[in-house]
């Protein structure tokens, strides 16, 4: 009887304790969320407020609204940001095509086909994941220079068609291995070639992983800075990241509003992916440990 009474009291006590914990946790988390998002929201607000207010106001609500900064920024350089956006989109879309196609071919071989040396090549592929790209940077530059590809998109795109982003091979191998083997075996019995099995069975079943690879490819190439910085030197070929950087160097000190407005615009595509494919992104990170 006494023990029964004790447990009742105990559970009531722990229930209040739990409630206090919940309130404290929410207060902490909301505080942290505000702190994390404040800079982003402030940047957004600053693009709509009068130029002189950017340096004096820490509020998130402009005293008067204007979208002038977007027009100023859009044509703030010799070449308009429209060109930079177009270039970035072209590079991103070609990169997606390259990565999805070349990486899935290699992943299919590693996951499904029997051939001598498979484990050897697979181990080498995993080793390239750890490699800092700096050790290949200079010879690759020399190679592309000799091919006459510098000052074009080719050095940024062609490596994707050669499955240079080995991370996606790894991602797809994991997924392909999870597909039921009976499908290929039955198709093989019916005389299907490996190519048909890849194209007609594996690829249609792998849309989730192909979508993940496509989205991450987009975000990575969209944000890539070093590649375009090295290979593109004419302004009409610049990507948005190079355009922004040029903006900082040339007019950034005089037109803060325009610079922040263009910064916001370059974040919009990635933010839209975040909005619509958040689950896919978070699952991708949780299951494979991608860094972003």
């Amino acid at each position, binding site marked *: 009887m006494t023990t029964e009474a004790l447990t009742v009291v105990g559970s009531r006590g722990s229930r209040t304790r739990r409630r206090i914990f919940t309130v404290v946790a929410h207060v902490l*988390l909301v505080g942290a969320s505000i702190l994390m998002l404040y800079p982003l929201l402030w940047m957004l607000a600053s693009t709509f407020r009068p130029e002189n207010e950017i340096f004096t106001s820490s509020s998130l609500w402009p005293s008067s609204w204007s979208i002038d900064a977007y027009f100023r920024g859009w044509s703030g350089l010799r070449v308009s940001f429209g060109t930079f956006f177009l270039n970035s989109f072209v590079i991103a879309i070609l990169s997606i095509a390259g990565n999805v196609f070349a990486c899935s*071919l290699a992943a299919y*071989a590693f996951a499904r086909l029997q051939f001598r040396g498979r484990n050897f090549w697979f181990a080498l592929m995993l080793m390239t994941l750890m490699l800092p790209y700096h050790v290949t940077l200079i*010879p690759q530059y020399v190679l592309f220079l000799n091919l006459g590809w510098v000052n074009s998109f080719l050095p940024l795109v062609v490596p994707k068609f050669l499955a240079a982003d080995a991370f996606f091979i790894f991602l797809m191998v994991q997924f392909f291995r999870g597909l039921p083997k009976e499908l290929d075996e039955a198709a093989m019995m019916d005389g299907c070639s*490996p190519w048909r099995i890849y194209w007609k069975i594996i690829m249609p079943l792998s849309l989730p992983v192909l979508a993940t690879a496509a989205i991450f490819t987009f975000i990575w190439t969209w944000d890539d800075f070093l590649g375009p910085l090295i290979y593109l030197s004419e302004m009409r070929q610049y990507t948005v990241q190079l355009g922004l950087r040029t903006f900082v160097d040339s007019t950034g000190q005089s037109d803060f509003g325009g610079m922040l407005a263009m910064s916001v615009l370059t974040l919009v595509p990635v933010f839209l992916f975040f909005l619509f494919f958040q689950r896919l992104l978070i699952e991708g*990170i*949780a299951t494979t440990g991608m860094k972003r």
Partner: protein
Amino acid sequence: MTARSMETGVSATGRAVAKTGVWARIWQQDGPGYLFLLPWLIGFFGLTVGPMITSLYLSFTNFDLLTTPDWVGAANYTRMFTNDPKFAAAMRVTFFFVIFSVPLKLAFALAVAMLLNRGLKGLPLYRAVFYLPSLLGGSVAIAILWRQLFAGDGLVNQFLANFGIIGPSWISNPNYSLWTLIILSVWQFGSPMIIFLAGLRQIPQDMYEAASLDGASKWRQFWKITLPLLTPVVFFNAIVQTIDAFKSFTPAFVISGGTGQPINSTLFYTLYLYQEAFGFFRMGYASALAWFLLLMIAAFTAFSFLTSKYWVHYDD
């Protein structure tokens, strides 16, 4: 006689069949695999193995891109360690950055993940909010924002002014400039947090129930159950984040305008490598820098794996 000639004839054609059969069998067995692997193989040799060997060779030469490489032996490497104050500065900056940003980032990630893992309502919303900075953080736009936040008349100082504090220009003060980059890195704790959350979910709840029955405090449960069982995830996150921190480039480039200033206080290793290679066209020296970076990362990874058996708990 006819019988014998017939016999040899048969065996000859038999051998011929067997011979083409061997090649056909090899083709049948290995051909498709290598065909599918072909794009990757071309890339692997053309863009990875070949360039690696070339850059190793270049690291023993002076090479300015226009004239042929000039063999200088180990001179580039000896210069790095004996006669290059900028290299020493870059090493200091990079190690300082790695040593402070990685543990702080992981500590935040783990603390928030543990708070979120207690069955709180609104988990998806919180997770999304904390993840957003790591998704956006690698861009030039965020580096520009950071430059503005920590400028002399930036948002941080506007905020401090409310308390009567007149802050310095954090970006252009060599005592603080690197810290602004560390804060930028810690701000992006979202993706390791997601990995921690996934790891925390793998820990069976009944272990905690058993521990509570035995009277173990929450604090003790953290040190005796959560942390040991989470060490594989901690290990993974630490390696990925450390390698990433070694390779960090864009924020330092944008915030310092590509210079690594003030007084080399943001001269990240990769920024120095970029300057040497594409600013001064000292490609040989830059190759030596690249190979030393590879050695540092390899040594760090090997060291982590070798020591992991003493602190990483593997369930087997």
